């Protein structure tokens, strides 16, 4: 019985869940830079429990499309909330692209969980408010080298 419990707990621990980003230590799985800006970043968590970490939401989207990951294999997309630094659901976040934002890979997109925070930022700094589908579209169209 004990063994069964142990086995059970082991299988449970493999269930997909986000990992906190270890700033200053973890490297981005797309651009290989060390992740160090707490306002930006994201994760792709696969159903197998594998976690990919990114320093910029642009890297996350490029990684997803270039590696042909099937959407059914993905447990969650997460991005870092610009205001709080927490990991939030990327597909439901509010995104602002603005030249006032300097993100690590110069995609210059901030993510917000609360629409109020996004609106506050927008009123202060200007920019374009977008959703997940729109920033996917935007980033895939950008070329990476000037």
């Amino acid at each position: 019985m004990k063994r069964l419990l142990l086995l059970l707990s082991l299988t449970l621990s493999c269930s997909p869940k986000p990992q906190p980003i270890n700033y200053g230590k973890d490297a981005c799985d797309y651009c290989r830079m060390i992740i160090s800006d707490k306002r930006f970043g994201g994760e792709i968590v696969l159903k197998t429990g594998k976690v990919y970490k990114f320093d910029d939401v642009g890297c996350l989207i490029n990684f997803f499309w270039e590696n042909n990951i099937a959407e059914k294999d993905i447990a969650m997309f997460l991005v870092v909330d610009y205001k709080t630094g927490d990991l939030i659901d990327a597909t439901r976040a509010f995104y602002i692209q603005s030249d006032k934002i300097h993100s690590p890979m110069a995609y210059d997109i901030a993510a917000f969980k609360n629409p109020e925070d996004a609106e506050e930022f927008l009123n202060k700094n200007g920019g374009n408010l977008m959703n997940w589908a729109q920033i996917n579209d935007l980033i895939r169209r950008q070329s990476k080298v000037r």
Partner: protein
Amino acid sequence: MIFLLTFIRICENCNLEDVVSNTKPYDTVVVKKGVYFVKNLVIDKPLTLIGENWPILDGRKEGEILIITGDSVIVKGFVFKNTRFGFIKDFSALRVKNCKGCVVEGNKFLNNMWAMYWENSEGGVIRNNYINGGEVKGLGTYSGNGIHLWHCKKILIENNTVTGHRDGIYFEFVDSSTIRGNISFKNARYGLHFMYSNGNEFYDNGFYENGAVAVMYSKGFKIFHNKFEKHWGGTGYGIFLKDVYYGEIFENTFYKNTVGMLFDNANGIKVINNVFLNNGYALKIWASSGNDTIMHNDFIGNSFVVSVNNRFVEVLFEKNYYDTYDGYDIDRDGFGDVPHRLVRLFSVIMDIVPATSILLKSPLQQVLENIEKFFPTIIPSLVEDKRPFMEVINYGNNKGRKSK
């Protein structure tokens, strides 16, 4: 007739803000020794600010210190200290905005979040500054960069010392600039970080004990006469090339790095006359790279010369010296007569199972590698040097050999 009248104003324990507001363009302000509290002081006209006996501009952690928005401003001889640190906003001791021909020379920057932040500027000089971010807080997540350039052109960065910041020198959208004679050490992330920056060159610099030097998303650079030493750790690279095109890297020394150079989608790069001494891997080349030339380099005392992650790598190795080469030179032309296979079996195994690194330099490794040598099956045969040099080329300034 036009008389050009300029004034020199002496400021001793004055309110710097008042003095600056009373000046006319092209005046000189001499600031005597003392501690001055300065917060977000804007200089919007051409002025020369000179500090005598290191006057301290103290931000008292309340904001930024100097903000230059005018052209041709000269700042010399000050100590910039204690900007505010922030999570959402970036605070910089000296911010240079939309400036043509500004000169920042011979200053000290201590305990600032950002030391210098240049944006949209052209034709400036940053020379002889000492920049220390203080203790690295939270492994560089909190602190900013030492010399940060964003959307700039034709800037000369010369003889500065940068330590204790996130990135020592940071370039984003910077073209046609020169970095020379600087020392960047013990920065939390990168000694030098280059992004989307084309046509720059850096030479005669020393980079020690940073995370790496990163050159990313850039075209047309020249990197020469630099030293890259002791970049240790899982992400420790002498130079880290990512999505770059057409660069020349020559006459540098790579000493005791975990990886001397990493090629990740690096195309058309020429690596010539460098010395790779006592690194873990001298080179790591990923299959996305192509058209690179590695020529006339010395590989001495590295655990591995090169590791590749694919059987086919479009990189030409030619006429390098390897201390691991055990071929012979019967026709006495200075080159080995049999090709030197560069990828060792164990680096392939270690890429698949990193834990096998525990068997490095064990008899088992030697047995396996000798078997592989006689019956090559696993390692990519394409990565080889057909004519390796028999003698050291560059190390110890053995310069007579270079021309061969």
